[in-house]
């Protein structure tokens, strides 16, 4: 199909519909309210349901309810809203229900600002809610990837029976780029009869299903956590996605960056190349599972003198980078997170200081 010019937020909404999502619950917050604005019109046309919750706390549990009933369901929000949903996300992870959460990140902490940020990396990848759980976290670098990842997210959520998060940022939500909606990313919903509370009248199996996160028996709780752990280990084996940019050169510096920030770094790398300076970038497309092996191997290339993590945060992903580089190379950091995105020229200055 032909390309269309769409805002990231609207494209995420359309991608969810194309992926077969029939349930979308949300509470408005800048900079992602256009997703709701789009879906409030489009979902009913597709026989779906849009419902605005009275708060993000309520929305979190509406998602839990629909996911527990085996429906494809999504919400979108931005940083403070995701914080409010985090309790429900923990419950959903514990109860092993597939659901898609989109965080169009804005500056924090607190109410922060409404401009783009990557300050929610820790929240997305290290928990956010309580307990031993992870989200599978996808980080698009533009509108096209936001579409593809939204479509993939529903498949992944069902494959692992758990919450998947798309971590974008305000810029990806607000900018327009040409997009295509690849039909091959659409999957049929999996059969959930063996676990979902979909109603006995609606399924063949007459087994009583129970969706819960409370396990008072210590053995049962431990078993549930082991089951979750096994899924995260499987994700690490099967779902890691990354891009190595300019990696076939004898680069002196390796940048690690993701999302909008990685696009600025990409331009900086192209400009440095014109000056005869080779720099590569490893861009995680999955923040969890993190591309551990790829980061280590890219950092350990003989020509590579140092690694620098460049983020729209005060230093979050850099902790994972340090963990993966295992002390083999110095790991530096540069970040800004007031809402102004560093320019390619700024990145070039930072890189030149490292040489």
């Amino acid at each position, binding site marked *: 199909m032909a*390309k269309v*010019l769409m805002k990231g937020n609207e494209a995420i909404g359309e991608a969810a519909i194309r992926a077969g999502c029939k349930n979308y619950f949300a509470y408005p917050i*800048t*900079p992602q309210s256009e997703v709701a604005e789009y879906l409030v019109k489009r979902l009913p046309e597709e026989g779906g349901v849009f419902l605005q919750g009275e708060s993000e706390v309520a929305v979190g549990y509406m998602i839990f309810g629909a996911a527990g009933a085996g429906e494809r369901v999504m919400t979108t929000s931005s940083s403070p809203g995701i914080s409010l949903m985090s309790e429900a996300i923990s419950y959903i992870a514990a109860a092993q229900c597939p659901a898609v959460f989109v965080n169009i990140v804005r500056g924090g902490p607190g109410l922060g600002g*409404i*401009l783009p940020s990557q300050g929610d990396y820790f929240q997305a990848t290290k928990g956010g809610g309580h307990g031993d759980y992870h989200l599978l976290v996808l980080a698009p670098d533009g509108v096209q990837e936001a579409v593809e990842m939204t479509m993939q997210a529903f498949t992944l959520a069902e494959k692992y029976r758990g919450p998947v998060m798309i971590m974008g940022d*305000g*810029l990806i939500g*607000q*900018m*327009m*780029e*040409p997009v295509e909606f690849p039909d091959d990313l659409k999957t049929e919903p999996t059969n959930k009869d063996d676990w979902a509370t979909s109603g006995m009248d609606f399924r063949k199996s007459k087994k009583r299903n129970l969706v819960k996160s409370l396990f008072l028996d210590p053995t049962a709780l431990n078993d549930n956590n082991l089951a979750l752990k096994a899924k995260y280990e499987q994700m690490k084996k099967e779902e890691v996605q990354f891009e190595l940019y300019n990696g076939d050169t004898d680069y002196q510096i390796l940048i690690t960056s993701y999302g*909008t920030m990685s*696009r*600025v770094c*990409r*331009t*900086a790398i*192209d400009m440095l190349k014109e000056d005869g300076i080779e720099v590569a970038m490893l861009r995680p497309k999955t923040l969890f599972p993190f591309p551990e092996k790829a980061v280590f191997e890219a950092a350990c290339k003989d020509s590579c003198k140092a690694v620098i993590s460049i983020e729209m945060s005060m230093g979050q992903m850099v902790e994972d980078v340090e963990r993966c580089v295992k002390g083999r190379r110095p790991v530096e950091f540069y970040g800004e997170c007031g809402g102004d*995105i*560093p*320019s*390619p*020229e700024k990145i070039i200055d930072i890189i030149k200081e490292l040489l």
Partner: protein
Amino acid sequence: MQTEIKFAGFGGQGILLSAKLLAYAAMKQGSFVAWIPSYGPEMRGGTAYCTVVISDRLIGSPIIKNPTHLVAMNLPSLEKFENDVKPGGIIFINSSLIPVTSKRTDVTQLVVPVNDIAIKAGSVRAANIVALSAFAAKSELVDLDLLKACVKEEFAAKPKIIPLNMDAFDRGVEIALADQAQTA
């Protein structure tokens, strides 16, 4: 080859739409494009600006500090951004609302009273279309027929205002080409 165009004015002038139409036409022409709004805690009547990037390759940084061209629809926009424009670029000035020209001597200035022209076409609300077509004719970034078709498509749901916008479009092109002839 990458070209960046900043559109700036006050909220309600249709800046975002002009920029979107240019991006849309460039996309139809086969270019990579990005439309990047400045969104902030702005109020109605406050400043509105956005940037269109047109490129023959995948667009890297969407953060543009120094655009190739500027379309300034009001005085604060000209004052704020004129010094950011790359040498050799076009600064488009809406002289209906901007009583001055730019002090820059290393750019091409296109001075068009877009509000007055739009009023002649039938409504001041078409000022953004006059600006778009005049700028497009001067900059030669996109095929004008294609751009005009994009404008028509945009207003497909409001057929009543299509003739107004088509007229506004033609008037914009006309004045830019007259300017071209004068300076040539």
